[in-house]
């Protein structure tokens, strides 16, 4: 083997190796459980949104697919979980598998229909599918409860043992374990040859066509995987809150998720982790502090990050570290 080949192997390995710092978010999530037992609902909301944002990062941050319809898969996961419980199948595992299946199916179908498109057209059509689903959920009251939503979605115990308790211990671990599994899968994809191809499609789809890449097939593939992951987030939300409402199929949910992704920094997975965590916690603190004007605070912080923090909070951190090292 030539020295160059060895160097490339080392370089490529260094890019995907686990670093110690990557333990940090998981330690924080575990520490939260230990020290904020009374706030597990907030912690659970964070985990659900982190999972959802990671799925959006795969589609938008890595593959560069412009979508405002990602909540479609979240909502379908949530409603599927709700409907399964309501129709006498309270086992959370069934809800989870059902939600994944429905969300993935919807992602394959809409992906095949839409992913040869780009830019604004794609943005509008992903939005249109979400609005359609929203309207169906609104009108199909016998199944979805319409505007009132589905209440008392109370799944049975996990593995017949872990009851969904009032304090939220079970649902916190449920969310954390699923988030970790989804994160591992997302990380593997991000560092795979397929993940590199997604970046290539994001950077220069025309050239990817020219070297013979089945661009649309790759996009449908990642859209489906991410759709299934968003479905997991939706199921988690339904099982955790015991409620499914129209906001799970809303444009606002898609938009908030996008804000979280940009806030943290897209195309690096940990940006989704940081962005969603900061956003949900900030939203919680700001709404406690000033219930009527909290959106103002969120909006102002967003403007600051976008203006001064290219690459989101993690981009900002990168530059601070670089400056610090430059001086040291």
């Amino acid at each position, binding site marked *: 083997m030539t020295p160059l080949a060895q160097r490339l192997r080392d370089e*490529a390995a260094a890019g995907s190796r686990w670093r110690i710092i990557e333990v940090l978010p998981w330690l924080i999530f575990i520490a939260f459980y230990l020290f904020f037992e009374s706030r597990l609902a907030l912690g659970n909301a964070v985990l659900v949104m982190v999972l959802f944002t990671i799925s959006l990062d795969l589609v938008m941050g890595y593959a560069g697919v412009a979508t405002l319809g990602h909540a479609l898969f979240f909502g379908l996961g949530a409603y599927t979980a709700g409907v399964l419980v309501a129709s006498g199948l309270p086992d959370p595992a069934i809800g989870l598998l059902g939600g994944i299946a429905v969300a993935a199916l919807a992602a394959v179908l809409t992906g095949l229909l839409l992913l040869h498109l780009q830019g604004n057209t794609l943005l509008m059509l992903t939005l249109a599918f979400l609005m359609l689903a929203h309207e169906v959920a609104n009108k199909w009251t016998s199944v979805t409860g319409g505007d009132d939503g589905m209440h008392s979605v109370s799944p049975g115990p996990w593995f017949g043992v872990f009851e969904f308790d009032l304090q939220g211990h079970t649902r916190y671990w449920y969310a954390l374990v699923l988030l970790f599994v989804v994160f591992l899968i997302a990380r593997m994809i991000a560092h*795979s*040859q397929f993940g590199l191809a997604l970046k290539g499609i994001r950077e220069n789809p025309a050239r990817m066509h020219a*070297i*013979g890449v089945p661009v649309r097939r790759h996009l449908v593939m990642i859209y489906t995987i991410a759709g299934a992951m968003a479905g997991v987030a939706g199921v988690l939300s339904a099982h955790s809150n015991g409620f499914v409402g129209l906001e799970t199929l809303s444009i606002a949910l898609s938009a908030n998720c996008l804000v979280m992704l940009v806030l943290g920094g897209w195309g690096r997975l940990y940006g989704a982790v940081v962005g969603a965590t900061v956003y949900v916690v900030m939203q919680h603190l700001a709404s406690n502090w000033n219930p009527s004007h909290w959106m103002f605070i969120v909006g102002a912080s967003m403007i600051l990050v976008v203006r001064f923090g290219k690459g989101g909070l993690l981009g900002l951190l990168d530059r601070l570290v670089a400056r610090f090292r430059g001086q040291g």
Partner: protein
Amino acid sequence: MNVKPSMALSVRSVSRRFGALVVAQDINIDLPEGARHALIGPNGAGKTTLVNMITGALRPDSGSIELFGEDITGRRPRSTAPLGLARTFQITNLFVRLTVWENLALAVATRSGADRSLFVRASRQHVVLDEVAALLERVGLAADATRLVGELPYGRQRLVELAMALALKPRVLLLDEPAAGVPSLETGQLLDVIDALPESMAILMIDHDMDLVFRFARRITVLVGGGVLAEDTPDNIRSDPRVRDVYLGRARS
């Protein structure tokens, strides 16, 4: 017309018009295996249109394109790349925010099908990486392997462009103005790489640069106003009065 059985690339009576404007008029070009063929002509002669028709970006109104006897008219790179057709772009068309080795890994992985593996780390796919390393050494980019393509000087980017096409292991290679925009001092390395391409590869070079074309080509087609004005050996083309009138004279002025 006698057609040899082992033509690598055949352009047969291809015509194309945009409204009233004829951009290709009954064009015929045959590239046997190992061809070193150049396509020259003044601006607007239809060179790029022809390349676009060969690579399937544009459909001819009539006529056909054949690759090793198989009709590929209007077929996209996704189906022609596996058959051995690759091209470089006149204007560098790369992944500027990825590193040089990542650019090449994309092409190598696509050709070998490695881009379909979702759960194997790219860094574990040593077959791909080793092939990338070999390519980098072949075109003289070893020192730039880990740099971002966007940070390279233009001459080096042209080498990446060429290496991307070679990564597809083509049997027919279209070079669309490979030295365009490269300072003449830096073209040497590019020419050396082109000279060292495998003898069996059929190459069609499209270029204005006469020094480059006459050094490279064993056959030249002169395109003017969408039609073939002449096809011959470099020596005969050089002395053809019609070619001098419409093209060479102007290019040398």
